[in-house]
Every structure is written in C-alpha cells, then in structure tokens.
C-alpha cells in the first residue's frame, strides 16, 4: 500500500491526476491493483447559523447553513444538529457511496438544498448503531467554512494497492522507493527527507560496545538517544500509519514504523537501560530460549540469528524483539538498531516460528545498505523532533558489506538489438537520467552505475534494456519475427512415438486420458507385473498422492469408475505417460482399457463387444503399423490382478514388452480388458518398407481340424504347421473352435484353413497333398493334437 499524500513529501506530483498516474506506473511494470481514493466532489464545510424545528415533523430541523459564498436552507434530521456547529455539507450534485445523488428537494413541503452528513454516509466510517445515534459529524472550530471537509479531516488520501512482481517488491513497497519509480516515469527529481540532528558532546561509544559474531549479519548500525519522552504521535504520523493499516502506539514505536515505511528499512528500538552496555550478534544455540514481546516463549534453532546482551538473547534478529528490552512508556534511553541480516535466514526463521511481520518480510526480501544508514539518521531526527530526544553523536557499526558499485557497460546498438527498436544515444541518455542511474558516455560506450536501491538490477545489457524498454513502453514495440533461417520443426524422440501411437489409438476409437502421476500406496500395488519398486515422496501433501506409479492401469480403472458411475456404458480408454521406478528410471507406457460395446447398433442386432481378442487385435494392428509384423507373440502367463485364465504377456523379439488380460473378478465384477505396453520398447528401428508382389497363380486351399487338450494352445500347433508347410504355405487361418458333442471332455477341436501357392507356377494337386500329409504327420508327431476325422 502506498499513500500518495505521503509520496508528495519526496516528489512534486501536485499537478498529476492520480488515476492516470496509476495507469502509467502499471504500464511501466509496477502493477497497481487498485486506486483507493476518498475524494468526493461537491462536499464543503458549512456553519449552521440558524436552526428551527420543521413545522410538520417532530425530529426534522430547518437549518440555515453558511458555506462561505452563500447561505443555504437545508433540512436535517440528525439529533445533534444545532446552531454554531461546523459541518460537512453535500451540495446538490454530490455523489455519495451507493450512487446516492444529492439533489435539491422538498422535505415535507420545505425546500432543502443539500444534506448535512455523517461520516458513515460518506463511506468513511462503519454504519454502527453508535455512529447512527451520534448523528452528523461535528467538525472542530478550526475548520474553515467553504473548504473541502475531507482535506480538513485528512481523509482525502489516495492510496495505491500494489501487486508487484518479486524483484521490485523491496523498493516499491516503501514510499521513497516508490517516489523514485514515479520520478523515472514523470522525469522528475526526488528529495530525501531531513535527517539532521543537533550536535551532541556525548558519543555512543562512551556507553556501548558492539560485536558481530556471525557471517549472517553483514551490516549492523546502532545509535543511542536519551531523554526520550514517550507520548502521543504527531497527527501526520498517526494518520499515515492508520491509512497504511498500522495502529498508532506511541511516538517512539510509531517513528520506527514510519521510517520503515519511508525507507523500507526495519528498525529495532531497545530499552537501553534494560539492555545494558553491550550487544553481541551471533547464531543462536540449538534449543536456546527467549520470551518475545508477544509474551510467548520461543525455542530457537542454530540456524536463527540472535541479538544478545553478551549472554542471553534479547531479540530474534529481523523477526521479533524480546520482552525484556521492549520500549515502554517509561523508557528514557533507546538504542536504535538498523541492520541487514541474511535474507534466506530470516525467511527461514520467520516461517519456522510462524512470525511473518512487516519487518521480517522486508529483511527477507533483501535490503539496501544506503538506506540502512539513512534510516537510522532519519529515526534520530524524528525522535529529536517528536519525542524530545537527545541524540548522542557517533554510530557503533559492523560493516562487511561489499559496496563495489554495479557498473553496466553497453552500447545503444546492444539495447536496440535486444528490444528490436531504434533508439539514438541521446534517447538512451535521457532514459538513464530519468532512471537516475549515473553514467558516463565515451565513444559510443555507456558505463552506467546502478544505484544500490535497485537490488533487482544487475549490470547486464538485458537489465538495462528492461529498464529502458519499460519506459519506452512495450506497447510501442512493433511485432517482427526472428530473421534467422529455419528448417521445418519435428517431433523428437519419445514425443514422436507418443504422437504416432496416440493418433492410431484414437482412430481405433479409444479416448485419450490424462491422469495423475502421483498415486496412493494401495493403488501403486495393483497390477504389479514387473519387478519394479515405487519411488515414494518423503513429504507428500496427502497419502493418496504420495507414490509415483509404475503402471497406468489403476489410473485408467479410476477413469472407468468415474464414467461408469455416470452411466457411460461403453468405455474405451488409453493413456500414454511416463512412469518412474525407485531408481528414477524412466519408462513411457501405453495403457489401454476396453469395456462394453465397441461397435453397436441395437435395433439392427449388430454388435462387437470388447473382449480379449478385440483388444489383442488392436494391439496387433498397432504393432504391425509400427513395423513389427511377425516379431511379436502373446504368451500365456498368470499376472497379478488379472483373470488367471485370460491374460498374457506380450513379447517382442522374445522380450516382454507388456501385458494383456481381463481384470480379475475380485477387483471388478464387470468384463474389463486392459493392456499395457512399454513405449520405450517400441522405439526400436524397424526395416524399411518394401513392395511385395501379390501372388499371380491361384492357390489351393485345404481345411483340416485337430483335436487337442482344452488347455493346449493353438499357437503351438500353428508353429508346427507353418514349419511343415514350408514356403508353399502362404496363409494359415483358424476358422472354427469347437467343444461339445463328438469331442471328449477336456478336449477341443480347432479347424484350420491352409492355402498353398507358388509365386512362379500353378501347383499340382499331388504336390499339395504331399505337403498337406506332412503337415498332419508333423503335428501329430510333435504335439498332443490328433487329426479330427
């Protein structure tokens, strides 16, 4: 929050429209969320010179109100209205909160030319019963008739509510820093406030010693004031703190806050008499204890920084003071601390102790050493002026700050190239002057010194370009495209495979899902078909998102549940995602889930339902599409959480690349088929595509059937048939599987159709019969199958 009335102390913006200024500031990068203004047009201070009862009312009064250039008749219903009061008058045309427009009117037949107001009617006070009963606002006798009442009450401030990006949230959150920001936008100068004090013969060094025993405190300054008179703050300090949302405590405490809001430097005031004559700044000892000024006992960690009196902690540095050395109404002598502590350490301590304050937040963002020095002088000046303090000469200090100025060296050409604009050297000089960055210019080269208040600016061309650019205005940039030559872009690595496979699966009618990588320990244990251990988050947000999944099947099952519960009956899903094991080994996987009808037309009795063979077909199609024809097999294998009789592992070149099966009925009663493939395993090079001529000579087709045990697999028979059939066997199809009458129990009959052909001639019946007989003999010899007659 920035109080513009306050900013006016440091920069002349009397002529500026503050709403318009807010837009300019926002455009230049400091985002002003809200402009809060209490100004209301057509309000004026008036004096009641005559007050009579309304003839038609028991509570209304008819008043004559002097507003300077004229006297108005106004009807007023407030209980406290009386002659001689100075009041706030809303003239016709004034718009009060709630869009209440004041007009000339007649109240019970008597003309009324405005309204005498209470503060709550102006939106400046809450409308409580108490406020209502009190009635109209009674201004003090010093109020001047004809002037703006809100100005008189110091209630006409304009406040900016900021939402600033991290890098600028140190210098833009104090009034002098903000004044500099306005200065560069309006090209004006900033005047820093007075900080002089009367000379004193006594020096702090006669009373006080400082020792800093930690690396985490690069700068520590202390000054001493005596004869302090603790009392009420002057009006302007109270009002400004109030507007900012801080309660006025007393002049001393208020001054420390006031200076913090001026310079961004938090100060700490110790009661010197309670403190003693020594300060040692050091790292806290683990388990060390302090009672902070909120009355709570705090146990400290070794990573905290403490201010001690040489023995025990008197203050948690940058976070909160101790109760023992707190400034009270009786304090006479104050030791003022203005210091820089390591930002990270303060952030850590403040968050560990849950003590985020205006001060700790500022320490946590980092501070500018120049203002550490200025702030302590300024506080002394104000204490002398408003608390009658005597300021001792001298400062006790520990100073290890690297004050080497940050100097950026650059040319206008570099700035232009970075932004894509065409400034001249003169333009750049103007911008640097506006920024108040001192610079030298020689033979086209700039050397600009970055002021310490701009902690965010580093001496790079980019940083200078940013400062110049935001003042130049990004809305003035002209869109261009990079001039460098280009080639066509492409999908690279696993992304390429993901896209190809994704498109194929979508064409099959499967719907892409995106689910969470993090899962629950229970979910992670489902469908564990690989010997993989899960990686577990050491500090999860919740148990149900604490484990990195190694398989996507449980997630797809969740999607199934979600849709099924919403009466979606045909559910075809896939997901392609990365998975990680306990060694963070990455594997991209493709999971598929099918349930319900794949193709259906009910009235037409047309239906293909999801089942094992359909899913197997999709996978075969996908593998063929990717170029793996004849390189994969499905091997029966029992897999956890799949139906023990309906599941298989999928092999590519004899290596397992995935699984397929029906979900075990103990997990889901419904018929759900799932499969999962490793995408990494498919990122294998396949042979280039080649033309193969279709057979020209007619083939001869012969059918036969074998009877084999129920649990034997057709694949074994097929392999023997293929081998025996040799190169003349061009196609082999299963066309019937039969169990029942004429087939013994525990047996099944599988009928095959074999086509024989030769690319170069027509085969004779004899040749085919020879091979056919060989096929039968081999199958009977090598398997448990018997020819069915």
């Amino acid at each position: 929050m920035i109080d513009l009335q306050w900013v006016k102390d440091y920069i002349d913006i009397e002529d500026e429209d503050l709403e318009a200024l807010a837009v300019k500031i926002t455009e230049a990068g400091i985002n002003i969320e809200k402009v809060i203004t209490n100004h209301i047009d057509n309000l004026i201070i008036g004096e009641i010179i005559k007050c009579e009862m309304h003839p038609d009312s028991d509570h209304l009064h008819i008043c004559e109100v002097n507003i300077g250039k004229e006297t108005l008749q106004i009807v007023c219903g407030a209980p406290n209205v009386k002659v001689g009061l100075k009041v706030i008058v809303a003239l016709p045309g004034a718009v009060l909160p709630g869009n209440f427009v004041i007009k000339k009117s007649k109240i019970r037949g008597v003309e009324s030319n405005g309204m005498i107001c209470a503060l709550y009617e102006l939106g400046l006070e809450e409308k409580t019963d108490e406020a209502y009963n009190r009635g109209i606002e009674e201004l003090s006798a010093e109020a001047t008739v004809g002037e703006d009442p809100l100005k008189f009450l110091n209630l006409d401030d304009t406040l900016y509510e900021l939402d600033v990006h991290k890098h600028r949230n140190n210098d833009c959150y104090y009034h002098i820093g903000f004044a500099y920001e306005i200065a560069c936008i309006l090209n004006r100068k900033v005047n820093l406030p007075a900080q002089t004090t009367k000379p004193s013969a006594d020096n702090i060094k006669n009373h006080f010693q400082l020792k800093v025993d930690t690396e985490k405190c690069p700068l520590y300054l202390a000054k001493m004031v005596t004869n302090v008179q603790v009392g009420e703050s002057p009006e302007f300090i109270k009002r400004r703190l109030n507007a900012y949302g801080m309660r006025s405590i007393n002049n001393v405490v208020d001054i420390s806050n006031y200076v913090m809001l001026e310079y961004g430097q938090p100060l700490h005031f110790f009661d010197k008499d309670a403190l003693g004559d020594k300060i040692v700044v050091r790292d806290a000892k683990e388990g060390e204890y302090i009672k902070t000024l909120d009355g709570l006992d705090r146990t400290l960690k070794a990573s905290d920084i403490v201010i001690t009196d040489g023995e025990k902690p008197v203050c948690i540095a940058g976070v909160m003071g101790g109760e023992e050395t707190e400034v009270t109404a009786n304090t006479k002598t104050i030791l003022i601390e203005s210091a820089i502590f390591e930002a990270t350490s303060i952030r850590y301590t403040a968050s560990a102790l849950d003590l985020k304050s205006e001060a700790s937040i500022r320490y946590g963002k980092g501070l500018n050493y120049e203002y550490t020095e200025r702030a302590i002088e300024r506080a002394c000046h104000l204490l002398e002026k408003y608390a009658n303090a005597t300021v001792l000469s001298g400062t006790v200090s520990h100073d290890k700050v690297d004050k080497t100025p940050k100097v950026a060296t650059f040319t206008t050409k570099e700035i232009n190239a970075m932004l894509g604009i065409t400034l001249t050297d003169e333009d750049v000089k103007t911008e640097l002057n506006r920024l108040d960055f001192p610079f030298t210019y020689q033979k086209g080269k700039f050397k600009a010194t970055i002021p310490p208040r701009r902690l965010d600016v580093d001496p790079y061309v980019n940083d200078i370009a940013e400062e110049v650019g935001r003042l130049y205005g990004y809305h003035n940039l002209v869109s261009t495209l990079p001039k460098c030559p280009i080639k066509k872009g492409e999908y690279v690595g696993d992304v390429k495979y993901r896209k190809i496979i994704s498109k194929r699966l979508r064409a099959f009618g499967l719907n892409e899902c995106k689910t969470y990588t993090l899962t629950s320990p229970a979910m992670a244990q489902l469908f564990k078909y690989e010997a993989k251990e899960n990686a577990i988050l050491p500090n999860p947000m919740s148990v149900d998102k604490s484990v990195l999944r190694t398989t996507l099947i449980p997630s797809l099952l969740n999607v199934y549940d979600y849709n099924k519960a919403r009466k979606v009956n045909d559910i075809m899903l896939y997901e392609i995602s990365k998975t990680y094991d306990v060694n963070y080994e990455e594997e991209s996987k493709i999971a598929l889930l099918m349930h319900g009808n794949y193709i259906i037309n009910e009235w037409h009795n047309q239906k293909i339902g999801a089942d094992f063979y359909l899913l197997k077909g999709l996978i075969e199609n996908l593998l063929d599409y990717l170029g793996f024809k004849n390189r994969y097999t499905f091997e029966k294998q029992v897999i956890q959480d799949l139906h023990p009789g309906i599941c298989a592992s999928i092999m590519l070149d004899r290596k397992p690349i995935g699984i397929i099966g029906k979900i075990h009925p103990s997990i889901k009663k419904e018929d759900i088929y799932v499969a999962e493939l490793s995408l990494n395993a498919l990122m294998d090079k396949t042979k280039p595509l080649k033309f193969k001529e279709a057979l020209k000579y007619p083939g001869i087709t012969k059918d036969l059937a074998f009877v084999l045990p129920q649990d034997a697999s057709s694949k074994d028979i097929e392999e023997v048939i293929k081998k025996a059939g040799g190169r003349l066997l061009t196609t082999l199809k299963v066309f019937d599987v039969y169990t029942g009458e004429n087939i013994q129990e525990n047996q099944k009959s599988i009928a095959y159709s074999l086509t024989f052909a030769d690319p170069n001639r027509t085969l004779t019946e004899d040749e085919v019969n020879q091979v056919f007989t060989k096929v039968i003999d081999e199958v009977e010899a090598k398997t448990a199958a018997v020819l069915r007659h």
Partner: protein
Amino acid sequence: MPLENILTEMKKAISEITDEQALNEIKTKYLGKKGIITEFSQKIKDLPLEEKKTFGANLNKIKTVATNLIDEKRLDLQQAILNKKLENESIDISLPATKIPFGSPSIMEKIIEEIEELLMSMGYDVVDGPEVEEDKYNFELLNIPKGHPARDAQDTFYLQDEEILLRSQTSPVQIRSMLAGKGQKPIRMICPGKTYRRDSDDATHSHQFMQIEGLLVDHEVSLSDLKGTFDIIAKKLFGKDCQTRFRPSYYQFTEPSVEMDISCHHCKGQGCHICKNTGWITVSGAGMVHPKVLENCGYDPKKWQGFAFGFGAERLAMVKYGINDLRVFYTNDLRESQIFDRKEMD
C-alpha cells in the same frame, strides 16, 4: 386370319398380359411349332412363284417384329419384377446408423496439438524432458539458487533431499536443450509437458498441470521478435481479431521479462467477468533468456540471444473453450472429452 391383322392382334394380346407365363403362351400361339405365323410360313410352298417372294419377305418381317415384341415385353416384365423386388427391399433410412467408435484427444491435448502444429511450421521441434528432474536443471541453472525466494512460489515435490524433484516447470527442458546445443547450435523448441507443485486440487489449483515451454536461441533475436511470435500464436488460437499486449514482468531466468495478454475474446475488450473487467487475459509469461542462463548452458551472451515463453495448457483451454474448473482436465469424463473429437478449421 389375314396376315395384316396378326401383329395388331398380337400387340393387343401382349398389352393385356402381366406375367411371363402368359407371354410364353402368346409366343407359342404365334411363333410355336403350330403357331399362327409358323402355319403361314408353311403355306408359302403352295403359293404361286411370283407371290412366294413378296409373301415370304412380308412374313419374315412380321416374324421379326413379333419376336421383338415378345422379347421387349419379356424385358419389361422382368424389370417390373425386379422393381417390385427392390421396392420390397426398401429400408427406413431414418433409423439409427451403426456407430463407428470414435476416440477423442484429451481436452488439453487438443490445444497442445494446435500449438505444436503451428510452431513446427515455424521451425520449432517438439521435445520433452524428464518429469523426475534434478534440482540443478529445474532451478539452479535457471538462475534460481538454493534459498532464493522464487523457489517459495513454486512449492516443489522433492523426492530425495533437495536434489531430485518432480519438475515444477518445463523450463528445465530449456536448459537441457541448450546444453545439448553445446553453445554452438541455434535452438527452436517447444516442450509441452507435465509439471507438479504442492497445491491442493480445486477449481483453480492442481498439483499436476501442463506447461508448454518455448525457447528460441540464435544470433539476432529481439523482444519484438517474441511479440511477433506471440501474435501469431494468439491469432491462431483465438482468431484473427485477437489483440495482444506485453506487460513488464519478472522471472528469474528471463530479462527483460513480460507477461503476454490477449484481448478478451468473450467481451471483445469491453470488460466482462472473464477478463475481470480489464478487457485483457494473461495467457503467458515470457522474456529474453537471462545472460546468466545462456552462460550456464555454454552460450556466449555477447553472441547469442534468445527468447523463452511458457503457456499453461489448462489455462489456454479454459480461456478458449470456456471451462471454469481445472479438475475437468483430470476426471476424463467421456461425455465432455468426446466433444473434442472434432477437427477445427481455421
């Protein structure tokens, strides 16, 4: 019967019949072995020589015409039968079709693929990097050292000490791309990928979300080039009338940094609840690659510049399709996602 009347009578008979059997009877009656026409031809031999020739020629003509009449009628009858049959086979074409299964992309994938296609045509490769990432790629080399406040905003899932984490942004892929380029190769890449932050899932937060990272590194690259690139993306996604603007911003790994806004397509910039009455919607953070980041990755900032940008895929989809709850993207409600199995033409 006189010869002249045969055809007239036959025509009359043919016109009165409706089936093939009757037609066959007519054929027999006139052209059969004992048919009227056949009988006439048997009479020829009895005629005097001079009449034989004309009568024979005349009779042949009649025979040809009669045969044609029969054949034509036969075709007509068969056609009528076929027509009748087809008429009976007629179906109610208004009954429902057999549904061809359709597979939709996820809602996010839709918008991601749009951006990918556009940017590939502008020379950007589409890449991805690991989701389990090292701290140095996710933070350190991006100019976000340990203890930096920028880390607080990206509350990260750490897996192992402060070294291995679930990436909190896709920006580490910038680092990986630049390191792979070894300070020599120009880079144009985008990376749509999953990212993770410690947020509780609700309408506006998700512990898992998708970012679309973009990076261009070359010898002459400016902030104006970034603006031009953003213009093209915005117009492709939100239509030709879409306006864009840059606002100064801050990111640790870009300098200068900007936020990229599009004009609110809902109210056309007039102000509405979607754009919070500003007329603008922020869709991306971007900027010129920070010289320290270039240096960290082996690119000499005196010779190379670059720009980087990042979109939130969910955010883009929410703005484009009018979605107001982030969870929609992860429930995979088929009733919602199947809307997106549709090609969108420019």
